[in-house]
């Protein structure tokens, strides 16, 4: 599914990713863990094509298709979804309007018919109920004045509405209390399927109790420095990143 | 609360305008009035070379053709430029070599003002306390500059402007008037013709000036103006922090202070310029007397990534007209302006800054805190502009006014000119009065009204005070308190 090979990327003058490679096959969940400043968010932005994050060498493909020349919305239409570490506030645009615009744009890009308003609202009500989101909140400007936890929940709601094929969760657990964490994880797990894959970026092993990864990678100094099974996350939780930070 | 209490007690022990005394010494005056001969007289008194005299005479010609500006929100009787002495100096020979040659009365004056002119006095202070070098300007002349030798060892030139003209003509010729052109404005032009003394600083490439430099300006003579001129150049990667203090005796007539300060920073250089201005503000009841403080201060951030930071605490003068500015020419250069302006009695202040963004990725930050009390008027006037080439320019401005009493005025007049689509300007301004609720809260906890006011005012200006070097901050905090005495109740 997603294949990243020897990726180098710079922000401004600084090289942040220094030869990163990772393969996430369809149906699998991979976790990326690493110390602060390792380049985890940078990876998520490079994959989704954020301006200012420049790829200097390496390749990124989704189902064999080169992602790098694509604009961010084209990548999104291919099914790439990023749950932002710091979701943006969009003043003046109600959450529902925003999501409907996005969904229709994606459908259109894929040559599928747009979704009609009643069907969209039905879907939104159902998903909101699953994620225990007050429907009234969806009429407010997206994320404006929302708490940190509400913003994260709104990310997962958008994910549920857009049903992407490849999911990147960047520190989605931060700012969530235990109940919210369970609701959010249920939402994510509901999207697990043989055709989908995900990359779960996290700092703590806690989230991985809820979203069980098939593989765990350690990102340090802009590279994957170790990979293993779920037990690697437990080891990191116990011993910290020192060993790997030194290796990087 | 102990700290507050202490401050309050300390303040209570100070008189209102403690710098209002006169030093009785023999003075050398230029005859009253202003004409080309007076300009020649000043130049001759200072043993200036011909090029300097020519520069002054040219400025004088231009000044005659100019009109006094009237756009500031201040009003005052027309100044009679012929009714003032343009040169006043203690009777001494020029070029004193040691402190022992300085008139003991002058030394006493500075002692009373708390300015250490004897290097050993500074050294004898608390161990580890920061040292600072002083250039003391008494009316029209610099009487002494301390720590010159030590500074010279690292290549820093710190001397009076008169000396710089004689000893470093190449530097003076290169930079004088290059930031504030001779005919920039009415008062700057007048200054160019008749400027008396001031400080000159040159910090060579790569040098971090090892101590704070400061100039202490004192107007003493009657019927005289002070027209000092300061020029500071920080060459590539140099750093210097400079402090300026000013006081004057209490006199019934108005005295004109029309200074020009020019700063130049080259690549990666930084100048931090702090002012505590406490000229005599005039009589609080009648408004009689006081200094007209019409000053042009400007920095030219010529070098890439260079930085200038202006911090000012303006408490004195009957009229202040002053806009320390930054021309952000170098790529990535930055300018800062932190200001506290307090007016009480019948004072009028029209002050602010100009941040002119010319280079790409230039930054500026303006924090202005104005406090008006009594029957005073306090105006913030500022310009932020980004030219088409200043892509990535950023400005943040916060401009707050506090009103104490029913008969004062506070004005905010910002000009914002954005000429490209890649810059970002943010400006916020508020005007409020001292909160009754907060006052009551503090008084309920046992503070007197005066103490409570001070506490709240200190909170209001804190953001700016913390930009000042330590010793100045303490001084400034006291000043803030004194300036507002009797403003409530």
């Amino acid at each position: 599914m997603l294949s990243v090979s020897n990726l180098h990327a710079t922000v401004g003058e600084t090289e942040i990713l220094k030869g990163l490679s990772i393969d996430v096959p369809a149906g699998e969940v991979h976790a990326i863990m690493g110390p602060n400043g390792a380049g985890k968010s940078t990876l998520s932005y490079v994959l989704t094509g954020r301006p200012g994050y420049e790829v200097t060498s390496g390749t990124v493909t989704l189902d064999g298709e080169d992602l790098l020349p694509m604009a961010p919305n084209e990548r999104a239409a291919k099914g790439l979804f990023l749950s932002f570490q710091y979701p943006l506030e969009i003043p003046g645009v109600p959450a529902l309007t925003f999501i409907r615009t996005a969904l229709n744009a994606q459908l259109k890009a894929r040559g599928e018919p747009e979704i009609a308003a009643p069907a969209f609202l039905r879907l939104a009500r159902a998903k909101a109920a699953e994620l225990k989101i007050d429907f009234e909140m969806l009429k407010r400007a997206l994320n404006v004045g929302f708490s940190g936890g509400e913003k994260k929940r709104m990310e997962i709601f958008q994910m549920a509405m857009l049903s992407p094929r490849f999911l990147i969760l960047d520190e989605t657990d931060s700012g969530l209390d235990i109940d919210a964490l369970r609701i959010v994880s249920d939402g994510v797990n509901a999207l697990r399927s043989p055709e989908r894959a995900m990359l779960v970026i996290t700092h703590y092993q806690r989230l991985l109790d809820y979203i069980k990864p098939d593989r765990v990678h350690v990102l340090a100094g802009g590279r994957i420095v170790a990979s293993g099974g779920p037990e690697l996350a437990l080891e990191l939780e116990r011993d910290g990143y020192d060993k790997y930070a030194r290796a990087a | 609360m102990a700290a507050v209490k202490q401050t309050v007690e300390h303040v209570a022990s100070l008189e209102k305008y403690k710098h209002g005394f006169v030093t009785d010494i023999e003075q050398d005056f230029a005859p009253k009035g202003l004409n080309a001969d007076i300009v020649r007289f000043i130049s001759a008194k200072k043993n200036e070379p011909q090029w300097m005299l020519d520069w002054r005479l040219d400025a004088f010609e231009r000044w005659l053709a100019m009109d006094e500006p009237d756009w500031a929100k201040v009003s005052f009787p027309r100044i009679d430029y012929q009714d003032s002495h343009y040169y006043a100096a203690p009777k001494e020979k020029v070029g004193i070599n040691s402190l022992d040659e300085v008139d003991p009365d002058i030394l006493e004056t500075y002692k009373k003002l708390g300015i250490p002119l004897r290097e050993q006095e500074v050294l004898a202070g608390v161990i580890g306390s920061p040292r600072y070098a002083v250039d003391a300007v008494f009316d029209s002349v610099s009487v002494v500059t301390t720590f010159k030798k030590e500074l010279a060892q690292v290549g820093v030139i710190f001397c009076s402007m008169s000396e710089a003209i004689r000893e470093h003509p190449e530097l003076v010729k290169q930079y004088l008037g290059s930031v504030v052109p001779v005919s920039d404005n009415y008062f700057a032009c007048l200054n160019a013709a008749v400027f008396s003394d001031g400080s000159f600083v040159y910090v060579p490439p790569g040098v971090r000036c090892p101590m704070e430099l400061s100039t202490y300006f004192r107007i003493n003579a009657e019927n005289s103006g002070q027209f000092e001129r300061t020029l500071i150049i920080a060459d590539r990667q140099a750093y210097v922090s400079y402090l300026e203090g000013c006081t004057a005796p209490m006199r019934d007539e108005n005295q004109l202070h029309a200074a020009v300060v020019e700063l130049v920073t080259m690549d990666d250089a930084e100048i931090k310029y702090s002012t505590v201005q406490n000229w005599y503000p005039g009589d609080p009841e009648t408004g009689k007397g006081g200094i007209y403080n019409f000053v042009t201060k400007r920095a030219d951030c010529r070098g890439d990534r260079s930085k200038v930071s202006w911090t000012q605490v303006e408490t004195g003068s009957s009229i202040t007209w002053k806009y320390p500015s930054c021309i952000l020419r170098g790529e990535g250069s930055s300018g800062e302006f932190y200001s506290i302006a307090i007016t009480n009695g019948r004072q009028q202040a029209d002050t602010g800054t100009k941040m002119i963004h010319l280079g790409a990725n230039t930054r500026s930050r303006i924090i202005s805190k104005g406090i008006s009390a009594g029957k005073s008027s306090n105006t913030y006037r500022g310009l932020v502009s980004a030219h088409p080439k200043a892509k990535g320019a950023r400005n943040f401005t916060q401009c707050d006014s506090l009103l104490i009493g029913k008969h004062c005025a506070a004005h905010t007049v910002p000009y914002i000119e954005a000429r490209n689509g890649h810059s970002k300007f943010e400006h916020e301004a508020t005007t409020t009065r001292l909160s009754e609720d907060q006052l009551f809260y503090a008084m309920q906890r046992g503070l007197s009204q005066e103490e409570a006011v001070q506490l709240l005012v200190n909170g209001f200006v804190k953001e700016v005070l913390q930009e000042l070097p330590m010793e100045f901050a303490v001084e400034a905090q006291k000043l803030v308190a004194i300036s507002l005495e009797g403003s409530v109740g």
Partner: protein
Amino acid sequence: MSVAAALKARNASALPSRRDEDWRWTDLRGLIRVLPEPSAPFNGIVVKGAFDRLADDHRVLVNGGVTRIEVAADRKAAVALRLIARGAGTHANQVIVSLAAGARLRLLETYESDGGSLAHTALTIALAEGAALERVVLAADHEDAVTISQAQVTLAPTADYGQTLLSSGARRQRLETRVAHPGGRASLRLDGVYVLAGKRHTDHTSVVTHQGLDGTTAQLTKGVVRDQARAVFQGKIIVSEGADHTDARMGHHALILSDRAEVDAKPELEIYADDVACAHGNTVGALDEDALFYACQRGIPEDEARAMLTEAFIGQVVDRIWFEDARKVARAWAAERLRA
């Protein structure tokens, strides 16, 4: 000399220039060396106006004229006022509006031109106690026109005045509002929207003078400029001595969407009373790149994301229009200008 007087005297050199503090960014004298000839009377037919359907009283002034709009005590009215310039002449309009106590008026005003005209409109608007007026101004001028509109508004205590200017600029376009605010729980909303392209210019200038206790003013202007357009915002709030408990807030926020466009702003406070809460905020910048990326990441194409974000930006002002049908017209106008 005032613009009106200069036009009356047919003296171009008496027009305000950049040397007049109030006109520093809207120079007329430098622009107009020779006054155009007086406009010829117009006998043709005018097409429908944007607000025709929303009003029961239609006033149309073509190439100058005078009209009076009076609403009696406790009566309601909706007036579509069209100030039209045909051709390239000079002319003046005069509009006198008065609302008796408790009267309510929707004043839906349009400026329309089709060439290099020079038009001046002087409005005097007076509201008695408890009267309410909503004024929506759509200034849809020709790019060669010079349009100066100057409104003098006088409020009585407990009056309620709301205004929204919508402007797409002209060669020079100045929409000026001066309000004498008596306090006394009178409330004032002064809003504006501009969307400029090409080499168009607009100037939203206002002066609000709070003269008595307990007045509120809420001002919000937002604009978008493109190409080589230039927008000017000058807002001044004066709180006179004794006008305590004044609550006055002013916001001006502009987006510059090109390399060469320009926004000049001067949000001014002049305060002579101490028990007040006054504030202004001003921002000028590009569209938030982070928000743009966020929208694109969700699959929205960049152009559409830009349009959505700018419309939302402007929409926050349009949403403050009380009269829903006028709000719809405003929203459609903004969407069309933004997507043009």
